[in-house]
C-alpha cells in the first residue's frame, strides 16, 4: 500500500517542544505520519498497549529484545538510524530462532529537528519493516530542548515467536562443530567511521545493515537447527566469538585466511589502522552447526542471494589444559596462532 505523508511540512517545518507534550501537536504527528506509515490493526486500535494475538502463530515460546540507537551521522551509505533500529532488534530475534513479528519505537527528538528529516527516517523504518512483515504496534514520542539531544535517539523493542523448534542451545556445543559466518565482516564500523569523519572514500563504503531473518528462516525450514547464533554488532566478529566461547568449556579454532573481508574494507582498515575483526557489523551473523550440517547450511545461505559470501571460518575444539577453556584461537597460514582477547573501548585510527 502506498503511503504519502500528509503532514503540513511547509507550515510546521520543525519539531518543537509542543510536539512532545502529548496534546494536539503530538496527535498530529501520529495521525498524519505514524499511523498512515505503519497502519495495522494493533496500532490503529490506539490503545495504551498493543493487544497481540499470540495464539495464531502457534508458538509456545516468545523472544523479546530491545536496543537503543544514537548513531552519528544519522544517515550513512547503506542505511540510517531507522533501518538500524529495525534490523538491530529484528536480528536479535532472528539469531535467537524467532520470527520477528512486532516492534515498538520510542523516539527522543531534539527541538529544531526538521520534520521532513524525521519523515525520511519513518520511511526507512517502513521499508525495512515491510521487507520481512514485522509490524510497528506501538511507540512513544518525546521532545527535548535544543542542545540536549543529538537530533534523534531511537529505542526499538521487538517480540517474535520461536520458529519451528528454534536453536539447539549452547549446551549442545561439541568438538568438531562448524563455525560459520554469513558474509563479509567489518563493513558497518568502517562505513560509519568514514561517514562521520568525512573520509572521501570512492565509491563510499556501504554499511551491511540488513535483515538476518530470511537466512535463519531458510535454515530452519530446511531442518537445520543451528546450535548457537549471534548477531555481529559492536565489537565485531572477534568480540562475538569471545563472548560465545565464554559460555562454553571448550575453545574455538579460527583460520584467519578463511574470514571473509571485502577488499575495500581491508584497504580502508589498513589506511586507518583499524582491525576488521573488531569492526562493527549490522547485518551479519555467526552460527555454529554440527559438522554434518555445514555443507548444506552454506549452500542454503548462499542460495538466492541470502548470504553470498557465507563461509566456514573454524571449528569448535576440545581443550586439554584448563587454562585454554573459553579460548578463541586465530591460526594463520604462516604457521602461528594467537589467542584473541577483548579490546578495551573503541578502536581509534592510527596516527601514522
Amino acid at each position, binding site marked *: 500500500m502506498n503511503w504519502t505523508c500528509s503532514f503540513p511540512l511547509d507550515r510546521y517545518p520543525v519539531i518543537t517542544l509542543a510536539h512532545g507534550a502529548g496534546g494536539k501537536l503530538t496527535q498530529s504527528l501520529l495521525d498524519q505520519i505514524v499511523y498512515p506509515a505503519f497502519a495495522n490493526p494493533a496500532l490503529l486500535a490506539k490503545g495504551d498497549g498493543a493487544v497481540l494475538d499470540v495464539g495464531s502463530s502457534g508458538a509456545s515460546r516468545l523472544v523479546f529484545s530491545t536496543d537503543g540507537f544514537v548513531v552519528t551521522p544519522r544517515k550513512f551509505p547503506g542505511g540510517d538510524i531507522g533501518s538500524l533500529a529495525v534490523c538491530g532488534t529484528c536480528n536479535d530475534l532472528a539469531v535467537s530462532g524467532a520470527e520477528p513479528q512486532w516492534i515498538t519505537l520510542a523516539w527522543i527528538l531534539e527541538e529544531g529537528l526538521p520534520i521532513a528529516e524525521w519523515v525520511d527516517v519513518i520511511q526507512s523504518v517502513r521499508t525495512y519493516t515491510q521487507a520481512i512483515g514485522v509490524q510497528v504496534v506501538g511507540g512513544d514520542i518525546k521532545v527535548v530542548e535544543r542542545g540536549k539531544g543529538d537530533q534523534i535517539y531511537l529505542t526499538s523493542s521487538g517480540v517474535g515467536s520461536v520458529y519451528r523448534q528454534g536453536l539447539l542451545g549452547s549446551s549442545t556445543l561439541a568438538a568438531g562443530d562448524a563455525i560459520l559466518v554469513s558474509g563479509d565482516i567489518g563493513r558497518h564500523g568502517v562505513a560509519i567511521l568514514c561517514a562521520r569523519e568525512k573520509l572521501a572514500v570512492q565509491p563510499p563504503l556501504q554499511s551491511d545493515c540488513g535483515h538476518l531473518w530470511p537466512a535463519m528462516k531458510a535454515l530452519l525450514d530446511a531442518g537445520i537447527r543451528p546450535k548457537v547464533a549471534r548477531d555481529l554488532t559492536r565489537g565485531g566478529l572477534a568480540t562475538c566469538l569471545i563472548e560465545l566461547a565464554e559460555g562454553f568449556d571448550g575453545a574455538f579454532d579460527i583460520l584467519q585466511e578463511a574470514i571473509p573481508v571485502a577488499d575495500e574494507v581491508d*584497504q580502508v582498515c589498513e589506511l586507518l589502522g583499524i582491525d576488521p575483526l573488531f569492526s562493527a557489523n549490522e547485518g551479519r551473523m555467526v552460527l555454529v552447526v554440527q559438522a554434518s550440517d555445514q555443507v548444506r547450511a552454506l549452500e542454503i545461505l548462499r542460495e538466492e542471494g541470502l548470504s553470498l559470501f557465507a563461509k566456514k571460518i573454524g571449528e569448535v575444539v576440545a581443550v586439554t589444559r584448563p587454562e585454554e577453556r573459553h579460548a578463541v584461537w586465530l591460526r594463520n597460514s*604462516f604457521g602461528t*596462532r*594467537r589467542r584473541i582477547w577483548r579490546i578495551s573501548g573503541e578502536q*581509534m*585510527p*592510527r596516527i601514522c
Partner: protein
Amino acid sequence: MEFLKEFRNPMRARHLLDKIRQTVTKPTVLMEVCGGQTHSLLRYGIDSLLPPHVELVHGPGCPVCVTPMDVLDQAHRLAYLPGVTVFTYGDLLRVPGTQEDFLSVQAKGGKVKMAVSPLQALEWAEQNPDQIVVFLAVGFETTAPAHAAVLARAIEKDILNFALLVSHVGVPPAIEAILKDPDNRIQGFLAAGHVCTVMGLESYYPLVQRHRVPIVVTGFEPVDLLQGILMAVELLEKNEFQVVNQYSRCVNSEGNPTARALVEQVFEVQDQAWRGLGVLPKSGLKIRAEYAHWDAQLRFKSELEILESATGIKLGSVQKAQCHAGEVLTGKLKPPACPHFGKECRPDSPLGAPMVSTEGACAAYFSYHERSAL
C-alpha cells in the same frame, strides 16, 4: 600488484625464514624502530618463527609513547579553558596524564574532539570562530609535513583562532642515543619505512659511518619485515655496514623534498624532551618565532601558569614511577618482563602510554600474548 596480499603471502614468508635460518651463524640483535613494525611482528607471530640466534628488540618509534607527560597535561588543561577546543588524534584519547586522560576531561566538561586529519581541526576552526582550536600535533617525521601544511594554510588564510601544541621528534637522534649507550646490544636497525618516505635515506649515512651498524629501511607487512631482517643479517654476516632500502615500493633515497621544505618553512629544529629518553639534542621541532601566534605553548603560557599555581600540581610532575616506559622504548626491557605488565598495567588501566597506544610495545604484547608457532 596487491600490496596487502602479496606482502602477507605465507609462501614468501616461509621462503624468507628459511633463508634467514641458512644465513645466520651468530647471535644477532636487531631493533625494529617503529611501533607499527612491532605490532606486525607480534600479530603474525614472526618473533616465534625466527631462529633462536636472531633477537628483535623493540624501539622508540611510537609517537604517542614518547610524547612528554607535561605536553599531555598542557593539552588536558587547555581543554577546560572557556573558548578553547582541543583536537587530538584518537590514539591519544586514553593516554593518562598526571591526573587524567582526554576521555575523563571530556566527561568532566572539557572540550575535546577527535581528528583523523589535522585539516579537520582547521576546518572546524573556520566554522566556529568563537572557539580557539588547539591541535595536539605529535609524531615523528611522518606526520610533520601534514602539521606544517595545516599551519601554513592557517597562516596564509589568516585563521587566527587556531594553534598547534607541538611535540615532534626525529628518529636518527633516538638511534644515536641508543647506540651511544654503553650497555647497547643492538647490532642493526630496521628503520621506520614511513618516516623515510619523507626523509629519504640521507640522515642514516652518518649513523652507519660513526657506529658501524647496518640500517635497513623496512616496511610493515610480514614479508617486508622478514626481508628487512634477512638483509640486515646478510650485512652483519659479511661485516658490511650500509644503509639499504627494503621498502623501495614506497621509499626512494631522496624522500619527499617538497614535504621537507614545507616543514622547514614553519618549523625549526630544537632540543627535545622525549618521554623515557630525556632531552636529546636537535631531536625535535618548534614553530618558528615569526608564527608565534599559532604556537599554543606561547599563546597560552600565562593561562597554563595560572592553572598550575591554582591546582598546585606542576605539569608533568607526577610521573608514574612504576611505568618503565624508558626501558621499554630503548629496548632494555621487554614488556612481559615488566613487573606490572598484565597486573596493575593493562590497556583499560594503563600506567603509561606504551600500554595504551596502538603502536606501543606493551599494548602489542598484551594484545598478542599467548601466541606460538604451530
